[in-house]
Each structure stands twice: as C-alpha cells, then as structure tokens.
C-alpha cells in the first residue's frame, strides 16, 4: 500500500474553469499528477490514449453527461474508479451515479478536506485491490469449478458460462477470498469495499452476496461457498462446505 500519492495520476473532468482549476491545484498540492478535460467527449478521448488512477467526474457536462461517460467507460471495460461531483445532491441522483458504475459521489458545493479524504480513500481501496491481485497466485481465484480473473474482472463459472464482474463484486470476492474460512462482518465488507457512507445500509452487502451466489453457486438457494453467518456476516469457503 503506497501512503504517498506522489505520481498518481488523476483526471479531472469539469466544465467550469474555476472549479477545474481549484480542484487541480489542490490535487497537485497533495502530490497527484493531474490532467483536466472540459467535457465528456474530451475525457473519453483522453482515456482512450492514457490511463489514470482516478477520474473526478462532473455530472452536468456539455454534450454527454457524467453518468453517460461513466457508463461508456464501463462498457468499454475501463474500470478506473470514478468520483462524481454534482450540483444535484438528491438521493435519486446519488443512486444513479453509483448504478452507472461510480465509486463515490460528492454534492457541490463540497468541503475541500472531505473531497481530498474521499479521493485518498478510493485510491487506497484500489491500491489494496491491485496489490492483492498482483502476483500470478493472487490474480486468479479457483473454487468449486469457478475461475475468477481479478485483473480482467472476468470469470468462468462452473457451468462454463463467462461472467463479467463489476468492480464491487470483484472487490467483495477479493476481501472474502483473502479471509477464506474466516468470518467477515458486513461492516468490514462495507468499510473495505466502499469505505464511506455512500450506501447507508449493510443490506447492500447482502445484495452483492446474492449476486455472487447467483454467478458461482450451483444451487444459489443452498450455497456451499458463500455462507451466511447469522447476525454477523459471511464466510467464504474455497473448497466448498462438505
């Protein structure tokens, strides 16, 4: 885990020049390398050529809006984390942002320190995920006939079906696999995968576990790998429950 963000590249997509400049200067002062784009098309063009560790994405952009940019990226298989900035802070928009594949959501006007904290938290989570999938041994997880490729966010299920994993599904799987055989609480999962109060409820974790079961369990109703520990959380068994 790298504590210093030095050299970490962030793309700021914001159509307001003042806000873009302010965000850029502050991120630079924290040691990040920053590029900016004024609209969605420019951002997508830049991302086709280059990579970055995080995209700070305004929602109300001229042309394609931020949600559209994020969806397009995910469809292209680009899993770069996205922090949405928006003037609309209502819950409906929040949910839309996260559904389109965003990692976090901040309403304008925002507090500088909160913004910087969130940027750091997202990068830390991804840092952990990447370093935890860095070696040949950790990049691939095999259990019960399933094979998960953490780097490509792809999997082949026991029945031969190809699966595209979302980042959150992959992260949850990663946390569970790292603690195979142990009990992992819902709160731990929330903290490790989302970090912040993006989702207010631990029910969200349950929904993701259901999705993982549907993808990888032979009988999702009677799971052998993703076990519920009542009142606490979950336990992952790579061998499968006897």
């Amino acid at each position, binding site marked *: 885990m790298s504590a210093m963000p030095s050299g970490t590249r962030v793309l700021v997509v914001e159509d307001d020049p003042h806000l873009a400049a302010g965000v850029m200067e*502050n991120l630079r002062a924290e040691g990040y390398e920053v590029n900016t784009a004024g609209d969605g098309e420019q951002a997508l063009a830049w991302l086709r050529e280059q990579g970055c560790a995080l995209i700070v994405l305004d929602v109300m952009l001229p042309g394609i809006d931020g949600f559209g940019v994020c969806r397009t990226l995910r469809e292209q298989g680009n899993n770069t984390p996205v922090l949405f900035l928006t003037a609309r802070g209502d819950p409906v928009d929040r949910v839309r942002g996260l559904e389109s594949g965003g990692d976090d959501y901040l309403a304008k006007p925002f507090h500088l320190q909160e913004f910087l904290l969130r940027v750091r938290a997202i990068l830390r989570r991804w840092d952990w995920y990447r370093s935890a999938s860095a070696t040949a041994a950790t990049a691939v997880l095999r259990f019960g006939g399933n094979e998960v490729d953490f780097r490509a966010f792809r999997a082949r299920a026991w029945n031969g079906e190809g699966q595209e994993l979302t980042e959150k599904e992959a992260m949850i799987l990663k946390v569970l696999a790292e603690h195979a055989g142990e009990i992992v609480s819902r709160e731990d999962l929330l903290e490790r995968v989302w970090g912040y109060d993006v989702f207010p409820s631990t029910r969200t974790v349950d929904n993701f576990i259901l999705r993982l079961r549907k993808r990888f369990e032979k009988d999702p109703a009677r799971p052998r790998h993703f076990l519920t520990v009542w009142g606490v959380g979950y336990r992952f068994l790579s061998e499968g429950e006897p």
Partner: protein
Amino acid sequence: MKATRVFQLTVLVLVVVSAVQVGWWLLDRHAQTHEKVRAARTAYAEQISAAQALLDAGTSPQRVQQLLPQIIVADGHPTLAPQVDEALRTEERHRDNQYAWEGSFFLLALGACIAVIARALRAEARVLEEQENFLALVSHQFKTPLASLQLSLETMALRTLSAEQSRTLIDRMLADLARMEAMVTQILESARLERGRVEFKSEPLELGAAVARVVTHLEERARQERIRISCDIEPGLYVASDPLALDVVVRNILENALAAVTPLGGGSIALSARALNAEVELSVRDSGVGFRPADGARLFERFTRLHPRGGGGHYGTGLGLFIVHRLMHLGQGRVSAHSEGVGQGAKFVLTWPAAQGQRS
C-alpha cells in the same frame, strides 16, 4: 395562491352541482307535465264513461252535451271534443319546449363556467410547474460559482500560499461573485419578462446612438482582452422598440460576442446595420469560438451554454441570449444566429420594425 386555488375549486364544485341540479330539475318538470296531462286525460275518460252511462239510461245526446261540455256525442258514442284534445297536446308540447330551451341555456352557461375554471386551473398548474423547473435550474446554476468560491476559500484556509497564488485565488473569487451578480440581474430581467408583457413601449429610437452607448460601456473590457470592436452604422436609422429593451438586447448580444472571442486571446467584433423595406437589421459578427450550425436554435433557450469555457473571467449564465430572444419577440422583432461551425466565428442578426416616418 393557495387561497385562490381553494376558491376556484369550490366554485368549480358549486357549478358542477348546479349543473346536475338543473338537469335533475328538467327531468322532474318533464315528468310532472306528463303526469298532469295523464291525470287530465284520466278525468276526461271518466266523463266519457259518465256520458255513456247517461246515454244508456236514455238521456238525450243534447242533454249530455249540456251537462258535460267537453264531450261530444257522435253516432251515439261519446268522445272527447277535438279542441280539448288539441289543447292538451299543445300544452304538453309547449311545456316540453320551454324546458328544453331554458334547460339547455342553463346547462350551456354552466358548462362554459366549468370549462373556464378548469382551464384556469390547468394554466395555473402549468405555471407552477414551470416555476419549479425554473427554480431547480436557477439553484443548480448558482451551485457551481458557490462551489468554486467555497473551494477557493477553503484552499486559502488549508494551505500556505504565495502572494501570487493568493492573488489568483482572490481574482477567481471576485470573478465568481461577479458571475453570481450577473446571474441575479439576468434572472430578475428574465423573470420580469415572463411576468410583465404590458410595459413594453414602442417608440422611435436611433440605432446608432443606442449601440454606441453600449459599445462605450464595453470598450475597456474589450481592450483588455485585445478585442477590436468596429461599428459601421449610418446615422438616421430609427427602429421601433422599447428603449430599455433595446439597451438590454444590444448589451447582451455584445457581451455574448465578447465571451465568444475572449478564449481565443483576441479578435474582432464587427457591427453593421442597414434598412430593409420596413425593417432595420443589425448584424454582429465575431471572430470567436462559433458553434455547430445545428445548435443555432438551441442557443436562445434558457440555460443553454454551448461554450462553458468561453469568456475569460466572465461566465455565461445561459440567460443572456434567452433574454435577447424574448425581448426581440415582444417588440415584434427577430433574432437569428449563424455560424459555419466551431472555431469559425459567429454572426447574430437582429431585426426590428423600422420606426414610422423616421427613416432617412
């Protein structure tokens, strides 16, 4: 607002109830008339039976007719006198006709009332919705400069800055404040436009003088941004417009042109005017960022900002051209925007009716 709505709804309910009552009353009157006629006929039938009894008892037909004047006896059979029968029929027809006319009149009047009130209620609901949309858009527009202000201030609070960096942030904050102030002015202007269509005056105004006033006002800013404004308007061109509206229109069009040229680091704005039949046309051509031809119509919609990066230090509110469009429309004028494409500059053409008898 709410009290008016309650009142309108109450009146609507009253009118609907009245309409139902009128309908019921009509049916009731109709039934009653028929009932009366039927009763009369029954009474006459009894008289006919009585006449028959008298005849059977040997009373002479003449005597029977004397006793029962509505009955006539022909060939030894008593029947109702034709004029009485006719009178009954006429009475029935007359009453039915009366109810039909009076009833339809009342129902029509009440129906009209219902339509008028329902229409008013619908119009009000639409206005309310528009206002809500407007408020949502306005608050959204304010959040960006607010966010920028907050970010600048928090940066100053969080970090140790050089004098130069502080200066940059202060300039940025001042520009944000100026932007918010411009937005307030324009929002008020556009709100006034939405409300008061009545105060619009139409008087002969010399276009050259009006343009010159606005240009003088903006010249300093243009010089700073290395933008040359040239004016080719012959004196004596008079347009029929509202003096305030003319000023606002020309100012907004010129500010839009400045904002379009500024990002290119300099350029030119050329104004020219000519008389065309009964109209006067002002062209404002700039060497600025231009726009996609397809976006020409969208430019005049509220909160459209095609070039958010346009205009160093001055930001579009998305209201300027909307105001121009509304004002031109109110004054029987027109405005259109033309561009060959992004980076090709743009031309705005304003057309007013020429002032009567003032054309040179």
